[in-house]
C-alpha cells in the first residue's frame, strides 16, 4: 500500500485489511487537485450519473437544463415523447443554446448568432445561398451534440459520457432494489414535487456520499433533531430506537453501491403514522399499508411502509427513503467545494394532508434550512478544514464493524464498499 506524501505519486489511497479489521482512507483523496482531475477522467466520465426523473418532463417537447458531471445538459422529450439528452453548447461557438431552467419547445435557437436546432438536435438554421457549402452538416457535425448514453430504470434517467460503458442495469446491479422500492410507494407512480434544494458545501464531494448513509453519526450530529422528536413524540422513541437496532443492516453491492435499512422513530408519509398526525393521519396511513399489502405482498409492504433506507449509488447519487424521500446528487467544483441538488420524490396524486406531512418532514430534516442538514454541512466543512493537517495526520478511519458478520447501518461497510470501487476505478479499472 503505497501512499506518498505527494498525492500526485499516490497509486493507492486506501488501506483495506479485512483480517485485522482495519480500513483507512488517505486524506489526500479529499484535498488534491490531481485526484479531482483523475476522478473526472476515471469516474465521472465513465460511471452512470443521475440526470433526472421522468416526472420532470410530463409532456412531449418539455425540456429542462441541468449540470451533470460538470457539463451543462438539455434533457428533453421530442414530439413523439422520447427522452433525449444533449450537451447544452452550440456547435457553432459554444454558447449555451438553452438558458431557461425549464420549458416546452419544438426547437432551440442560440441567442449568440442565431443557430437553430429542432428538438431532436438537428441543425435547422436557414442561411442565404453560398453562406455554407451544400455539404454542410452532412456528417451531423453541427447538430446539437448528444450525450453518448442515456438509459432509465423505473423513471430514473441516467447518462454516461462513455459510449462503451456497460448498461445501466449492469451498473446498478442489486441496488435497483432501492429504485424499485421507492417507485412502489404508490400505485399511481412517483413524481418530483415542488422544486429543488440547491446549495453548496465547502467540502469534498465524497464526504457527502459518506454522510448520506452514515448511521453512526445520526445520534451525535443530530442530537437536537432527536431532542425535537422526543419532545413531540415522547421519550418512548428512545426505547424504540434500542429495540430497532435488531433490524439494522447495511446491504452492499460489488458495483460500489450500498443501502442501509433500519427502523427509526419518525413518521413515514408512506406509511408509518406518529401520534402528532392525529386519528385522521393514522387512518390514512393504515389505508396505505392495506393497499401496499394487497399490491406488493406483506413482506415488501413492510419494507416500504415501516423500514427506513439510506442509499448511496456510486458515485454521486443518494436516495434517502426516511421521513420523506430525497433524491440528491452533487458534483465537485474544486477538491474542497461541491454543488448539491436535492429533490423530493412523492406519490402522484398524493392526498393533500399526506403531501403536507411529507414536505414538512422533508424540510425539517433533509433541507439546508432544517434541524439537521445545517449540522451535516458544518461537520463536512469541519472535516475538510481538518485535512489541512493531512501531511501529519494522513488517514481517515473507516473500520467500524469490519469484523462483524452482518454489517449494520451504523457500521461503515457501506463507506468501505464505496471506497473499494472508487479506488478500483482510480487505478484505471472500468
Amino acid at each position, binding site marked *: 500500500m503505497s501512499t506518498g506524501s505527494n498525492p500526485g505519486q499516490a497509486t493507492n489511497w486506501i488501506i483495506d485489511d479485512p483480517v485485522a479489521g482495519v480500513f483507512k482512507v488517505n486524506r489526500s483523496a479529499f484535498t488534491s487537485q490531481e485526484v479531482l482531475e483523475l476522478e473526472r477522467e476515471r469516474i465521472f466520465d465513465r460511471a452512470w450519473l443521475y440526470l433526472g426523473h421522468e416526472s420532470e418532463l410530463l409532456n412531449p417537447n418539455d425540456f429542462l437544463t441541468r449540470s451533470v458531471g460538470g457539463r451543462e445538459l438539455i434533457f428533453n422529450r421530442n414530439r413523439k415523447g422520447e427522452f433525449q439528452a444533449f450537451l447544452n453548447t452550440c456547435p457553432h461557438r459554444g454558447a449555451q443554446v438553452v438558458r431557461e431552467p425549464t420549458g416546452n419547445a419544438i426547437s432551440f435557437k442560440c441567442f449568440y448568432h442565431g443557430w437553430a436546432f429542432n428538438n431532436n438536435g438537428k441543425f435547422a438554421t436557414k442561411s442565404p445561398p453560398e453562406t455554407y457549402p451544400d455539404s454542410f452538416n452532412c456528417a451531423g457535425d453541427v447538430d446539437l451534440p448528444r450525450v453518448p448514453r442515456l438509459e432509465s430504470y423505473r423513471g430514473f434517467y441516467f447518462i454516461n459520457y462513455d459510449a462503451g460503458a456497460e448498461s445501466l442495469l449492469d451498473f446498478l446491479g442489486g441496488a435497483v432494489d432501492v429504485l424499485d422500492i421507492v417507485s412502489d410507494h404508490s400505485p399511481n407512480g412517483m413524481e418530483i414535487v415542488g422544486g429543488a434544494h440547491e446549495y453548496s458545501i465547502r467540502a469534498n464531494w465524497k464526504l457527502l456520499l459518506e454522510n448520506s448513509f452514515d448511521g453512526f453519526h445520526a445520534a451525535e450530529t443530530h442530537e437536537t433533531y432527536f431532542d425535537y422528536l422526543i419532545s413531540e413524540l415522547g421519550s418512548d422513541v428512545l426505547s424504540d430506537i434500542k429495540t430497532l437496532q435488531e433490524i439494522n443492516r447495511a446491504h452492499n453491492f460489488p458495483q460500489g453501491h450500498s443501502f442501509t435499512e433500519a427502523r427509526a422513530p419518525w413518521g413515514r408519509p408512506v406509511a408509518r403514522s406518529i401520534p402528532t398526525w392525529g386519528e385522521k393521519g393514522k387512518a390514512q396511513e393504515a389505508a396505505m399499508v392495506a393497499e401496499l399489502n394487497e399490491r406488493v405482498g406483506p413482506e415488501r409492504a413492510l419494507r416500504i411502509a415501516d423500514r427506513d433506507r439510506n442509499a448511496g449509488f456510486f458515485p454521486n447519487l443518494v436516495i434517502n427513503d426516511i421521513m420523506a424521500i430525497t433524491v440528491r446528487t452533487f458534483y465537485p467544483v474544486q477538491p474542497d467545494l461541491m454543488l448539491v441538488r436535492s429533490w423530493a420524490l412523492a406519490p402522484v396524486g398524493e392526498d393533500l394532508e399526506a403531501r403536507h406531512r411529507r414536505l414538512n418532514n422533508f424540510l425539517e430534516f433533509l433541507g439546508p434550512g432544517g*434541524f439537521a442538514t*445545517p449540522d451535516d*454541512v458544518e461537520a463536512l*466543512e469541519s472535516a475538510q*478544514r481538518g485535512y489541512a493537517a493531512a501531511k501529519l495526520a494522513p488517514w481517515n478511519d473507516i473500520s467500524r464493524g469490519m469484523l462483524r458478520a452482518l454489517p449494520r447501518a451504523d457500521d461503515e461497510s457501506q463507506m468501505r464498499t464505496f471506497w473499494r470501487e472508487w479506488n478500483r476505478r482510480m487505478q484505471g479499472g472500468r
Partner: protein
Amino acid sequence: MGNVMAIAQSRPRADYEDFLYHEAALLDQWRLEEWFALFAPGATYEVPTMGKARDATPDNALFYVADDYRRLRHRVDRLLKKAAHAEWPRSSHVRMIGNVRVEGADERGTQIACSFVTYRSKNNITDTYIGHTYYTLVDDGGQLKIQSKRVLLGMNSLQPHGKISIIL
C-alpha cells in the same frame, strides 16, 4: 388573541421601521427568546426556495423553512443549544433593512415589505443573504406583533452559503 385588532395601519411608517430594526437587533445579538416573543401565537415564519411566488404554499412547493408557531418554538430551542453545531460556536451577523413599505391593511393585519442584506460570519468566511421580507403585523394591546414573516431570498441558490442555520 381576543384583543388583537387590525388597527395597526393607523401608525406612522416610522413605528414599523422601529419595530423591524428592533427585531433585527435582537437577532444580531442572539436574543432569541425576546425575538420569539415578538410573534403572536399562531404566527408563521417561512423561507420558500428561490424563485417561488410570494403566495407559494409549503403544501405543494419546497421551502427551506415553513415553521408554524410550534415548530418556530422548537427552532429557537434548538438554536440556543450547544448541540446546534452549525451555530456553535456562534456565528456573528449583521442585518441591514431598507425600503420599508406599508403595503396595506386588512382584517389579518398590516402588510409590511422590506429589503434586507444579512451578513453571517464564521470560520473566517462571510456569507451574504439578500432578499425581501413580507410581514403581517398585528396590534396586540398597543404592541406590534408578527403574525407572519415570509422571506423571499434574492440569490438563485444557497451557493456558497450551503445552509440557512441562522434566522433571516
